[in-house]
């Protein structure tokens, strides 16, 4: 009898350790877990846990730290369920950690070939999990499925040839029976795409090219054959509406980044959000934030999905804080433009017209003498996650407050080599800085802002305890009051923070996790 009881207890402790699609769809039912990249398919990047709150967050302290081996930026967003945390460490390794102790359960170490062209580091932002498999998209452009319990490779498929400068850094997104994989490489003149793979077999289910080929609608927005090198990559994990079966994904800059003369036209679907059928990969609609971009203002941010009344009627909305310094509200069933609000300094647009098309200032086209551009090519926002709190109705966005001078440079295309068309210089005697801005979700109107020493590469996490967590490039991990931005708690981690915080519950207690420097740090109350 005792043995039976013990077995039952053990089973309870380990839970199912399998993650069917239905659990991710219904992630709101298990607030103690972090089941997909942005917490839920709507990408709220919000924790419904309230044990750590405005009053007690001051008592938060480190519980365990796990050190990774990689020397690249540690950008992982953990997935946590059933007692296990899955992280990736650069370049393309996966580790499963026991959440009680921080001790590793298994590792997957991938041998990476030399000389992979990656503009911005051989980084990785996390795994996807579906059923009993853990998926990693690798820097050498493979998708690998690992056994969730052992880390053993179940299958390994090539997504693209990394020698063509196509690399994978984003966490895949698991939907229904497919694994969605985005890619990077727009600084090298690649042609962008978004892929879906059968979750069980790794067979490619569909591919959507983000620059249309001859005969396809949108091909006329590229002069000559420039669509072949047009970029529009998909390197940040998107969102999903299970009811509409629509995937929402941001696309990157057209290539070459700064020279529009070799690619006249609007350059679809660069700097856009695309809505694709999850089943077929067919385009339902697109919205281009920035036609014919000449300032590398990718729209690789996270579409945040929200059902809310709009002018008195319930509507399925999308919120999008774009790298180009405008905050957009769209109808996510149709792609209709509803509103845009400037949320920080910019000088590339006079404004946004009634249809959502920007009115360019035409003063930021790169020339030999140098032009001043706000924001710089790292953008106002970037890949780091925003957070939406249903309690405050606020959208928390970290913002890079920085401009730069750009000078025209060589634009000849050579495969596998940077294809930019400009060089960059910082502004002398101007100290860039960062802010967290709390914006009203439906209007983009600023309610409060918190100033940071330098432009951040850390996302925001709001919780039901009305606390917002984030971090800085100087290693400060901190908690703000979600209502007014007041500092409630801080901790010096000793390493640059290039990651997004998450929160989960283990054995009845809430924890907050963040990657800082080369360490995954977990904080909890005493």
């Amino acid at each position, binding site marked *: 009898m005792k043995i039976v009881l013990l077995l039952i207890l053990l089973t309870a402790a380990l839970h199912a350790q399998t993650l069917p699609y239905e659990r991710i769809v219904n992630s709101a039912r298990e607030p103690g877990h972090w089941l997909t990249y942005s917490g839920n398919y709507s990408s709220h990047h919000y924790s419904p846990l309230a044990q750590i709150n405005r009053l007690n967050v001051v008592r938060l302290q480190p519980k365990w730290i796990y050190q990774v081996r990689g020397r690249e930026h540690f950008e992982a967003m953990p997935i946590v369920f059933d007692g296990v945390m899955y992280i990736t460490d650069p370049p393309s390794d996966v580790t499963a950690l026991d959440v009680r102790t921080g001790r590793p359960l298994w590792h997957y170490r991938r041998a990476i070939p030399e000389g992979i062209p*990656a503009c911005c*580091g051989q980084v990785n932002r996390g795994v996807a999990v579906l059923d009993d498999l853990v998926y990693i998209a690798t820097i050498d452009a493979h998708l690998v499925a690992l056994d969730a319990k052992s880390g053993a490779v179940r299958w390994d498929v090539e997504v693209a040839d990394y020698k063509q400068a196509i690399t994978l850094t984003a966490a895949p997104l698991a939907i229904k029976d497919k694994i969605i994989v985005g890619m990077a490489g727009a600084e090298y003149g690649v042609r962008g795409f978004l892929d879906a793979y059968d979750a069980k077999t790794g067979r490619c289910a569909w591919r959507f090219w983000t620059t249309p080929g001859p005969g396809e609608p949108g091909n006329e927005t590229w002069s000559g054959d420039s669509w072949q090198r047009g970029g529009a990559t998909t390197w940040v994990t998107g969102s999903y509406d299970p009811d509409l079966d629509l995937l929402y994904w941001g696309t990157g800059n057209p290539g070459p980044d700064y020279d529009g003369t070799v690619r006249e036209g609007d350059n679809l679907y660069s700097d856009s959000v695309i809505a694709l059928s999850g089943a077929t990969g067919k385009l339902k609609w697109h919205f281009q934030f920035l036609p014919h971009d000449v300032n590398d203002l990718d729209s690789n941010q996270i579409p945040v999905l929200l059902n809310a009344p709009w002018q008195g009627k319930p509507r399925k909305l999308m919120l999008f804080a774009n790298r180009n310094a405008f905050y957009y509200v769209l109808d996510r069933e149709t792609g209709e433009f509803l509103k845009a609000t400037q949320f920080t300094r910019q000088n590339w647009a006079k404004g946004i017209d009634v249809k959502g098309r920007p009115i360019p200032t035409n003063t930021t086209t790169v020339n030999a003498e140098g032009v001043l551009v706000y924001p710089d090519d790292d953008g106002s926002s970037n890949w780091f996650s925003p957070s939406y709190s249903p309690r405050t109705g606020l959208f928390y966005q970290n913002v890079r407050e920085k401009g730069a001078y750009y000078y025209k440079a060589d634009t000849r295309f050579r495969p596998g080599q940077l294809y*930019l068309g400009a060089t960059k210089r910082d502004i002398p005697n101007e100290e860039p800085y960062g802010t967290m801005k709390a914006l009203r979700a439906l209007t983009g109107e600023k309610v409060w802002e918190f100033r940071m020493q330098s432009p951040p590469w850390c996302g925001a996490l709001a919780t039901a305890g009305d606390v917002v967590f984030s971090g800085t490039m100087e290693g400060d991990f*901190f908690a703000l009051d979600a209502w007014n931005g007041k500092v409630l708690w801080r901790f010096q981690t000793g390493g640059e923070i290039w990651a997004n915080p998450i929160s989960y519950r283990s054995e009845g207690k809430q924890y907050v996790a963040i990657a800082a420097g080369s360490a995954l740090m977990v904080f909890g109350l005493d």
Partner: protein
Amino acid sequence: MLAAAAVPLFLLMMQAPSGDSIYAGQCAICHGQRGEGGRGPSLNRTKLRHASDDTALRRIIRHGLPGTGMPATWLNEVELVEVAGFVRSLSNARKPQAELPGNAERGRAIFAGKGACVQCHVVNGAGGAFGPALTGIAAQRSAGHLRQSIVDPGADVPPSFVLLRAETAGGRTVTGARVNEDTFSVQIRDAAGTLHSFWKTELKMLKKELGKSAMPSYATSLTGPELDDLVRYLAGLGETEAQ
């Protein structure tokens, strides 16, 4: 690029873009148009921290430097030689010492005496800590840049020497160079070399003087020939010194 080995070298040479155009397209975005630095370190110096020789330099350009922002490239061998050669030439933008006017020995005397530079700058282990150490400075800064720093010190202030004025809630004022700063705290070194640490919540005011330096301009206090002597002395610091 995989065909590179099979193609006769002279054909590649004819097709290869020049080192300066490769540099402008791919390197200048981080290292500056003339190697003056930016997101990446400056390259207009004879000694490069990670590249002790040309082979090492080509290897770094080809494979990148893991753990830094330096990415790998897919330049072929000819292009690597071209661009590495151009990077080496950036250090020649600096005037060779022999062509500089002035006398280094007299400059050394001004540094220690009339200029009182040594009160704030360490050279070869001796001197004050208020300003940047100048041992080996010639490996990092051109003579022109050194001259500019002497006559117009605010023109290019390193981030760890930004001039700050802090006033505590109790009314105490500290002026000095910023040693470090984050969102919540700041560390300041005053003219006597004393370190001060503050939480920003302890301060009533924190004023940043961007574009200003704690160092006085020597534009009028030194004569033209004295300035030449001082620059000549500083421009000779470093060829044999450790950085």
